[in-house]
């Protein structure tokens, strides 16, 4: 269709179509991960970021849907939902786009898309301290520059998106030339692919298509995990997160359904696509939600979660029950996964642990919530994962009343080491400095398994093999755990080491861990070893050497 301008509802449909398209393709984007490890995947992170966009768009009252309002909510939702580095960059691209669209009132033109994409590129580059080429950054730059160059007054919005995608895909194909790790792994950049997938979805949405079939799985897209909000229990007004899919026998009046759900609770989302309607609401009456929708057809994938119980689980120990935490001068928030590690962090003075699972990198909003909950004048954030640092930094930038500093720990062992220098009575900047220095005293390694065949550097890796990743690089591959860990340790300057610490994961038995410890103590008699239960998922062992 030849739209030269669109209204708020059309714009919203485009964005939601972009969300749905990415959700449909997220598994194939995840599979572009350079390292074949089951961790922090790009597609999932971008999808979770966009689901926050969808949630915020769903909050706009029907009568107030304008281009400006949609842009505003999109930007805010992306900012709050941003997870993983790709999610943060995506949130900046959408934020830049919104900067143009929020000034447009009720209609947007083709030219606005040209300016919007250019503004998105500007914001994205500004957000990254050291922009790396061969990533989503390059693609969003080259695509928007190409669009600006070829744009003519006769262009429809469809022309604009096509031009953007045309150059975008050429640029995507060039990413392996710019980033050697991509070439080695034989993939293109996952974040860039995600961005183009979203724009493709927007284009389809412009033409009225809003649901997409997954490339990998024959499933409709609307099925998706919503971000888990780690809300402090007392902030929860509506207790049950209720989700379901209706296989419509009769057409769902989406507006009426939304209005009904808004009476029952908040965070309402009703998306109808063909004969499928996806429903999400936070309510105290999940039964009424089911009763309402069963009149439209069969209910599928019903999910009712008690967010209070969930949220209490996320907090540290039993402190989550308290009404409001006592005001402190300084607090520390750390990201951790695994009960053992959570307890270790709490025992080192961390005030709040944000639980980040293997594919659940915490969002900017998770950090914002934690910053609020700890009730302190100043807060230090420990992301403990290189893919979470940007979300933490974004939260630090958004915090206005609280002084927030990010100690950019890239691994769990770095986070633990940084806490050795933490002085709860000290000044926030001095602490951040001392902690950053302390974390550099350790070398970190992770042991996990490969999720697919690949070759990286000199290693031929088979699916299911053990991988020893030292300081972010694969340094050992093998089938025998003890041998693999020795190989990994040998890549960590064991000659100068005094102390090595192993945190064993949930898949490892205590007996196995103790046997490994004995073996290592015999192999490296000069080094002191300590073994702790980390109970983390995915990583059999996290190792630090200092």
């Amino acid at each position, binding site marked *: 269709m030849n739209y030269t301008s669109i209204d708020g509802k059309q714009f919203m449909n485009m964005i939601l179509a972009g969300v749905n398209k990415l959700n449909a393709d997220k598994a194939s984007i995840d599979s572009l991960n350079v390292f074949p490890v089951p961790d922090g995947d790009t597609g999932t992170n971008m999808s979770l970021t966009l689901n926050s966009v969808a949630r915020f768009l769903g909050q706009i009252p029907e009568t107030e849907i304008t281009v400006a309002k949609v842009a505003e909510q999109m930007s805010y939702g992306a900012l709050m939902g941003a997870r993983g580095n790709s999610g943060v960059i995506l949130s900046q691209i959408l934020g830049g786009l919104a900067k143009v669209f929020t000034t447009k009132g009720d209609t947007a033109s083709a030219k606005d898309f040209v300016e919007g994409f250019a503004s998105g590129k500007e914001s994205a580059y500004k957000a990254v301290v050291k922009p790396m080429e061969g990533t989503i950054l390059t693609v969003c730059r080259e695509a928007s520059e190409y669009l600006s160059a070829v744009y003519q007054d006769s262009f429809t919005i469809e022309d604009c998106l096509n031009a953007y995608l045309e150059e975008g895909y050429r640029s995507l194909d060039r990413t392996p030339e710019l980033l050697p790790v991509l070439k080695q792994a034989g993939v293109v950049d996952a974040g860039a692919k995600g961005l183009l997938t979203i724009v493709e979805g927007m284009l389809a949405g412009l033409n009225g298509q809003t649901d997409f079939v997954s490339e990998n799985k024959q499933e409709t897209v609307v099925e998706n995990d919503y971000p888990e909000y780690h809300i402090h229990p007392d902030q929860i007004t509506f207790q049950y997160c209720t989700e379901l899919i209706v296989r419509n026998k009769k057409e769902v009046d989406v507006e009426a359904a939304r209005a009904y759900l808004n009476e029952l609770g908040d965070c309402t989302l009703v998306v109808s696509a063909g004969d499928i309607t996806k429903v999400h609401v936070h309510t105290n009456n999940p039964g009424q939600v089911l009763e309402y929708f069963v009149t439209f057809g069969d209910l599928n994938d019903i999910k009712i979660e008690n967010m209070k119980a969930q949220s209490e689980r996320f907090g540290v120990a039993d402190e989550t029950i308290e009404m409001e935490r006592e005001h402190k001068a300084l607090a520390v928030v750390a990201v951790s996964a695994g009960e053992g590690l959570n307890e270790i962090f709490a*025992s080192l003075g961390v005030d709040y642990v944000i639980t980040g699972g293997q594919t659940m990198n915490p969002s900017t909003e998770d950090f914002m919530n934690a910053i609020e909950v700890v009730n302190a004048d100043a807060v230090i954030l420990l992301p403990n994962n290189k893919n979470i640092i940007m979300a933490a930094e974004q939260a630090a930038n958004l915090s206005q009343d609280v002084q927030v500093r990010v100690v950019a720990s890239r691994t769990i062992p770095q986070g633990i080491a940084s806490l050795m220098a933490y002085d709860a009575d000290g000044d926030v900047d001095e602490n951040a400095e001392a902690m950053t220095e302390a974390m550099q005293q350790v070398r970190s390694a992770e042991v996990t398994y490969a999720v697919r065949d690949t070759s990286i550097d000199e290693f031929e890796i088979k699916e299911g093999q053990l991988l020893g990743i030292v300081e972010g690089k694969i340094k050992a591959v093998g089938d025998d755990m003890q041998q693999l860990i020795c190989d990994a340790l040998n890549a960590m300057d064991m000659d100068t080491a005094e102390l090595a610490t192993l945190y064993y994961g949930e898949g490892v038995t205590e007996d196995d861990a103790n046997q490994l410890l004995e073996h290592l103590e015999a192999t490296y008699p000069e080094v002191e070893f300590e073994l*702790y239960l980390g109970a983390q998922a995915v990583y059999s062992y996290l190792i630090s050497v*200092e």
Partner: protein
Amino acid sequence: MTKIKIVTDSTADLTVDLIERYQIEVLPLTVTLNEVSYRDGVDITRDAFYQLMSTTEEFPTTSQIPPAVFAETYQRLAAEGVEHIISIHISGDLSGTYQSSVLAGTMVENTVHVHCIDSKSATIGLGPIVLAAARLAEQNLPIAEILETLNRVVEQTAVYFLLDSLDNLHKGGRIGKASHMVGSLLNLKPILSLNEGVISAYEKIRGNKGNKALERLIEILAEKIDPNKKLYCAIGYSDSNALEQAKYIQECLQDKVDCDEFVYLQIGSVVGAHIGTGAVGMGFYQL
């Protein structure tokens, strides 16, 4: 000539030599272990106390000096012709002893001038303050000037020390701001500070190889001590097994600081009850 007498309590952990040299009046706190009470430094030797502590599961308790004991002492000193008593005690945040002395001072206010000072410190921090008072008193300075100088000494006093564990400090409720480190699941050696009367966690050291924690304590002391100012200090150790570590502190620092005398104080049973065996540290001030 105004007759001035220095009174302190047993937590200054002064040696018999020093007490005699400066004619200091020392009143004992009480420590109770296995239901037997001992006057600190009087009824039980320090080594015997640590020995006893290491052979029992019981946690020793300590009690302050009662006001009546202070009042009696102040009255006796007044009867001996003392006009001004400078009574310097363990931090009011750690013990009720200072409060007792203040109360006793008001009880005898018509008989003698009692000047109570909260050292905001203890043991190796309190010891050097008391010695400063004794030296000032010997110089026959006006009392106001002595007190003013002592105030500055108290302000300048810092203590850094290393413990084997925080268990005793925690059990005895004297953990102060280091409480967040208790129950750490990792094997940590805490370096603590005692400043402004309160114990704080200064740094945590992981691992036991190569005396890492002691080396770091010495590094911290070297950072905190100004080499261009005269250093007044006391090096402390709890059980005699820790003496070697205490000597190592002097060995490492003596060429880097301007100090006439490294005073060694064995930490007595009252403070020892709270910090346990294996403690070593230094208290100091510079004017």
